[in-house]
């Protein structure tokens, strides 16, 4: 299993290098394009820029994603943006934050909705770009993006006082992006 994962990483890396060699525009691209060609392996937790929260503990983050906390300090209802099924970011969040697999997460969600513990189901969004726009438009939104997908339209929240590029940051993706 580990061998096949490494092989697929190498294949994807070679494909990216070849594609870049063929595309002169991409060769002269900006640093952000460079960054996008090498996706960050760190997962940033992002909120709407109007949200006063700048820092969350990991346990607070977990409570929010599990639906145990429904409102922000400013009164806005918390709206969770989840990426679509099969996305590495989603699997990372399920693994590190929810500490569940996909099936367990679905069970948890159904149970929470049924019992009324979860007011609003997380929005399942097709891509990181849509997720970023969702967070930008909804004052109470919270979501997750690769650090390389973050821009100025959203705000990155520190987790236990750490940002994605800090040492000992916990939310790391251990698999490549699925294009």
């Amino acid at each position, binding site marked *: 299993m580990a061998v096949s994962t490494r092989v697929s990483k190498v294949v994807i890396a070679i494909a990216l290098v070849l594609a870049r060699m063929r595309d002169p525009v991409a060769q002269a691209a900006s640093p952000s394009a460079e960054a996008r060609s090498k996706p960050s392996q760190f997962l940033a937790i992002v909120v*709407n820029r109007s949200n006063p929260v700048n820092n969350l503990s990991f346990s607070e983050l977990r409570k929010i994603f599990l639906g145990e906390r429904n409102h922000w300090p400013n009164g806005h209802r918390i*709206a969770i943006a989840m990426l679509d099924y099969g996305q590495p970011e989603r699997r990372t969040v399920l693994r590190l934050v929810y500490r569940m697999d996909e099936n367990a997460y679905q069970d948890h969600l159904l149970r929470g909705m049924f019992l009324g513990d979860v007011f609003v*189901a997380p929005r399942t*969004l097709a891509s990181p770009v849509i997720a970023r*726009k969702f967070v930008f*438009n*909804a004052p109470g939104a919270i979501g997750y993006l690769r650090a390389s997908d973050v821009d100025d339209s959203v705000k990155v929240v520190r987790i236990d006082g750490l940002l994605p590029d800090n040492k000992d940051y916990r939310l790391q993706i251990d698999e490549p992006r699925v294009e």
Partner: protein
Amino acid sequence: MEKPPNRSAPPFVPAYLLLIKRWLLARGLSRHASIVLLLLVLLGEAGVAVFVMLDLSRSYATVQGMYNGSVQGLVRFGDLQYEAQETRRSTLYALTTNDGNLMVEYADQSRNADRGVTRGIAQYRSQARTARERQVGQRLADDWDAYLKVRDEVLGLILEGSPKEAVHLDLSLGVPEFDRVRQDLEEIKQTYDEQASQQLATVAELSRRSMVRLGAALGFGLLLGTVAIWAIQKGRLRSAVELAKLQMDFVASVSHELRTPLTAILTAGENVRDGLASGHDRLFEQGSVITDQAAQLMELVDQVLSFSATSQVQIAQTLRDLRVDEVVDHALRATKWMLEAADFTVEPQVEPDLPPIVGDLSVLSQCLQNLIVNAVKYSNGNRWIGISARLNQQDREVLISVRDRGMGIQAADLSRIFEPFYRSPEVVAAQIRGTGLGLSIAKRGAEVFGGGLSVSTQVGVGSTFTLRLPVAKEIRRRSLAPSARTGAQL
């Protein structure tokens, strides 16, 4: 004495029309005047064309300004209205779906549309000219900002999963705010409509004014052209009539001049034939009558032939240097019999050492003889003639003047006395015989040799005719006048 009725023009006739009538039309136009008049017409028409082009250019600029101001303004307004509706429509679409992806897409569309509206409002405010436009623009910007705040909250509630709250907020705040925006847009549309109406009226007025100007300009050009053509035609007709009249007068005059000596010759011949003239003395007397009258007849024919020759510039004289006193003496000898018969006193005054002139002796003598004959004819009883010759150092000319103390020439006749066949009404009335060719022949004869003939006169005091003839060196220096070269050999 009864005065003739006042025939002055009515007061509404402008002075320039009278000027045209009296000066241009009544007198007819010369060839040069016709050319000048045609050039004036051409310039006038060119001016009219420039005027029309400038007028059309101004009209085009005004219409273009109207298009930029109103039509494009209305187009921008239409875009603005559409984008505002799109902003709201996309927000409402977001309410109708549970799909988060679609919600985000609709939110995105709403934001794109609202950016277009914000840009449009800024553009409208930057181009606002009147206080009303600025006021409406400011109000629209404020109302739009207020609506966008509500819209943002509504979108947030939709995305956060609170559709009921979103609907409530939209109905309570979003709808009234958007209605205010709509009212502002309607007011802007009204200002555009008013501007368009005003500018349409301006264009209509401009168009009407252009048509009037164009009509007036074309009418003016047509009138000017018609007047010019009429004047030219009238001038030609008048010239033809005058020429015909002069020819008729000439024929009558020549016939009369021919009839008189012929009658005398006929009578003398009949006297001899019928034996009425008997004896040597009587026969000699009748013979003298015949020869004198024949000589007079010959002279008349010579004069007509001479005029014909000079008028066609076909003189083939043998040119040579002539002494001025030689020319004067020749003319005096030729007219001696006439001067003595009329008992005239002649005072010749020729400066000594005059430089020679160039010409043909018989032609120049004929010129001088014509002047002497005229002095006798129009002496008005004062039987004195002064003939002088002097040098004009400045122009290097010899001036030969024939002066009399006769009747003088009316000012009105001065410009015409050198025309062939012309005889003034006073002379005709006084029954002074002549062909009207003498002065014309003299002038033409002087001009053939590069000179000229001028006159100074005073009615009742007398006249002085002066032949101006270039000295021999001068005429060679000038390489001969064009008229001298024609048919002449140096």
